[in-house]
């Protein structure tokens, strides 16, 4: 589409940039908001999923007869109840319900619908699965080694050279220049290997859904998802239904962070509902969430960077190996593209390998693939800078990508905000604040792409002059408020006069999932365009009333006014006045906009972290933390700050505590919040934020996505800080106390 290129920065805003209360706020503080598990239906059955206790096993046979015979059991489904998946969806189906093999601990193998949860659980114990246990592999480097147990045979694509393990699914390479020649010009070449553990998005709301299907094949599904249109399309394909027969309603969503951009239980609930002829509700428990939904990839990364002693990077090279669980699709491509993206490099190369292991299929997690790569690269740059006695911010400024830089992944950057974030970091009081004993300061940069995608918005003007905005993207962190604000801004009416609702799949056309930080950008753009369409319509109506040309009517401050030669001839007509007589002037007034909103802008951040490491226990405490990010125009600054803070803290958890721990048996050892420890309030200080507003030329208000970049820098910022505090370089995440203690003691002994 043709994007509106009107210079966004020249605008002054009335509503955008303020901090109104969110429209769903009262429901959420009173307990009234309905999340995934909060819905029920008359005659509803409870669904329960039986999961593989093995990391890798062939399923020879499944006998469900005893379970089916149990009183209260109304349906049992296995893979045999699903037709072959359409091309391209085989893995999605196989992940929802195992076919020939169970590929990880927790893989679904059968499901039951019964009159109570207790009966469903009891029935699961009566299902007899005949497993042939196979050798397994859960570590990425082990999976790449020759002779590793293979999950799939013959699925590597044409990019994988001969001689690799069958678990390597694909290989990507990015870059330009001549690495070896560049390294030869360096005063020092640093070579380091880094590892990051798999971490889970950790949304507090487990997956939940309620499915109904009538004998006529019409179905309804209620679920918590980042994209109910995606759920509709996927479920319809897996169940052999027409998309139009399945209506999906998105509940309020209790966090997603990328983890709710695919389906797990939804097709299973529909299959059970179809078989039982009754509504079926499935709610995962936390153990299931950790064992069987998507964590992100774990990684193993080798970096080589050459630097001159005045801090110029002469060449940068990285090999990234990501395991994305049991199916192809780890985010190594995006890791490879983003690794060196903040820097202006003459010689740069990244090589990425997508590897499968006996772990749950990874799902997107906030800036998928980028945090691990940034951890490796930003750690290496920090180590080089310190080695030369240079200020790490100066080194980054010296190498920073700017407008016109050819990025490490290919395209030339338009106006970008990296340098501005670095300068703001230098000027921030945090950067020069004194440190206490056992404390250290670290800094790191991060980059993310941001996306657009298919989007529909309908804006209706009611007879009393209020406005309803209907959009199709679940509101994960206040986007309804942002849409109402943009509509109010464009129409020139108060924020309180606009209400934004999330429509079910019957109400709008296709909408891309809420991901890639796309909502404020793309849905915002469609909202503005829908409002403009409504304004045009209202101006046309008023022109008729006044008997003048349409072009002679303009919209200003919430009213139609005569312009040009007619200026001042008629009193302005407000939106409410026009709405009141809509029936007399042609019928109800609405505006709508449907678009594939491509052309989103990239975004950068710089984070500063202070940590204190207890030399006796190795425990790390975050003492102070500052996030500086280019947000483009911040529509609702409080929610922008919230995105910065939330992403930073997820990154802190990744750096310090969170990890998937597998035993030698391939079984997940810590499937609960007690042992999979996400940051709690007492772990943290306040998270300072600095919003830079460098307008995105691809959006009428200059909006960029803000949701993802904030998780990219913290891993390295914290690691660099710990290394400054302890004098040892931590290259293996998480930096859990035993690891830090061992490193500190090792250094003292050495």
């Amino acid at each position: 589409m043709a994007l509106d290129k009107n210079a966004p920065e020249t605008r002054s805003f009335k509503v955008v940039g303020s901090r109104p209360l969110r429209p769903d706020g009262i429901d959420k503080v009173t307990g009234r908001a309905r999340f995934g598990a909060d819905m029920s239906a008359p005659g509803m059955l409870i669904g329960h999923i039986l999961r593989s206790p093995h990391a890798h096993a062939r399923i020879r046979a499944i006998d469900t007869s005893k379970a089916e015979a149990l009183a209260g059991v109304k349906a049992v489904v296995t893979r045999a109840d699903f037709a072959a998946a359409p091309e391209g969806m085989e893995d999605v189906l196989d992940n929802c319900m195992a076919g020939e093999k169970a590929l990880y601990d927790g893989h679904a193998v059968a499901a039951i619908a019964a009159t109570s949860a207790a009966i469903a659980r009891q029935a699961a114990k009566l299902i007899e699965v005949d497993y042939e246990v196979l050798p397994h592999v859960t570590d990425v480097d082990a999976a790449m080694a020759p002779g590793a147990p293979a999950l799939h045979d013959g699925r590597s694509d044409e990019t994988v050279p001969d001689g690799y393990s069958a678990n390597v699914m694909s290989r990507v390479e990015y870059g330009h220049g001549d690495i070896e020649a560049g390294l030869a010009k360096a005063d020092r070449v640093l070579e380091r290997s880094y590892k990051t553990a798999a971490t889970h998005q950790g949304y507090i709301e487990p997956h939940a859904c309620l499915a109904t299907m009538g004998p006529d094949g019409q179905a309804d599904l209620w679920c918590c998802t980042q994209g109910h249109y995606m759920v509709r399309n996927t479920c319809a394909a897996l169940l052999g239904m027409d998309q139009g027969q399945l209506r999906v309603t998105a509940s309020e969503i209790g966090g997603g962070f990328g983890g709710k951009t695919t389906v797990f239980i939804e097709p299973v609930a529909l299959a059970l509902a179809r078989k039982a002829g009754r509504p079926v509700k499935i709610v995962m428990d936390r153990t299931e969430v950790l064992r069987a939904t998507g964590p992100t990839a774990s990684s193993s990364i080798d970096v080589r960077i050459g630097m001159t002693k005045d801090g110029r990077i002469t060449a940068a090279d990285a090999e990234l190996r990501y395991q994305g669980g049991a199916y192809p699709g780890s985010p190594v491509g995006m890791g490879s593209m983003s690794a060196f993206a903040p820097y202006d490099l003459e010689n740069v190369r990244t090589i990425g390998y997508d590897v499968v292991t006996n772990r749950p299929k990874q799902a997107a997690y906030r800036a998928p693939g980028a945090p691990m790569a940034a951890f490796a690269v930003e750690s290496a740059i920090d180590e080089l800078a310190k080695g030369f006695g240079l200020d790490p911010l100066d080194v980054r400024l010296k190498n920073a990508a700017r407008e016109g830089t050819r990025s490490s992944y290919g395209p030339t950057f338009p106006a970008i905000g990296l340098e501005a974030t670095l300068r703001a970091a230098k000027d921030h009081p945090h950067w020069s604040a004194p440190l206490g004993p056992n404390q250290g300061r670290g800094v790191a940069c991060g980059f993310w792409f941001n996306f657009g995608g298919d989007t529909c918005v309908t804006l209706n003007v009611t007879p009393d002059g209020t406005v309803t905005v209907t959009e199709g993207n679940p509101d994960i962190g206040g986007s309804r408020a942002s849409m109402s604000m943009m509509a109010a801004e464009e129409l020139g009416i108060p924020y309180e006069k606009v209400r934004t609702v999330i429509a079910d799949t019957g109400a709008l056309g296709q909408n891309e999932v809420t991901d890639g930080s796309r909502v404020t950008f793309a849905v915002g753009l469609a909202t503005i365009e829908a409002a403009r369409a409504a304004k045009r319509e209202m101006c046309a109506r008023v022109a008729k009333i006044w008997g003048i040309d349409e072009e002679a009517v303009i919209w200003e401050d919430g009213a139609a006014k005569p312009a040009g030669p007619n200026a001042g001839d008629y009193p302005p007509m407000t939106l409410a006045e026009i709405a009141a007589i809509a029936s007399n002037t042609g019928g109800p007034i609405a505006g709508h906009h449907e678009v594939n909103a491509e052309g989103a802008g990239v975004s950068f951040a710089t984070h500063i972290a202070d940590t204190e490491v207890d030399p006796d226990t190795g425990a790390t405490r975050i003492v102070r933390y500052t996030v500086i990010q280019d947000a483009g125009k911040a529509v609702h600054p409080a929610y922008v700050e919230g995105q910065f803070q939330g992403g930073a803290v997820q990154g802190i958890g990744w750096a310090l505590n969170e990890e998937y721990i597998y035993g030698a048996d391939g079984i997940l050892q810590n499937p609960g919040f007690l042992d999979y420890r996400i940051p709690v309030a007492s772990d943290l200080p306040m998270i300072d934020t600095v919003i830079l507003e460098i307008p995105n030329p691809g959006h009428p208000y200059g909006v960029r996505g803000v949701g993802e970049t904030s998780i990219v820098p913290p891993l390295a910022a914290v690691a660099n800080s710990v290394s400054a505090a302890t004098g040892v370089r931590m290259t293996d995440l998480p930096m859990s106390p035993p690891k830090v203690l061992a490193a500190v003691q090792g250094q003292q002994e050495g």
Partner: protein
Amino acid sequence: MSQIHVTTRLNGDETEFLCDAQETLLDVLRNRLGLTGAKEGCGTGDCGACSVTVDGRLVCSCLMLGAEAVGREIETVENMADGETLHPLQRKFLEHAALQCGICTPGILVAAKSLLEQNPSPTEEEARYWLAGNLCRCTGYDKIIRAVMDAAEEMRRAS
């Protein structure tokens, strides 16, 4: 399996229900009494999303049996506002944008109310430790803590 008959005071009203012996108070509230404000984030006492008070004490309702509610006073998030008037904590959470997705919010509000009842002027550190049992994955806690401190101040001034 015969069910247990329980009489309790729920949000100020005498309430009766039948439940199975192994059913948690959280299940009873959500599935039998239609009070879905308390959420199940873990079912193991680790996330605090199910927080309610029982005889004024903060508990994880996922760790208590429904049958144990006999003769107790149960308060849930649904009873925090006084009719149309929000509790100062609820108001401050909205003003400070202390929620993103809002799934943790009911539990955190109940826990914070209980904090302020015990300690009307907590330090930031005390608030952080008191709320350490309530996980929030969206906000990084910054705005939550600010909202709690601000509400505490307002309530002190009002009293």
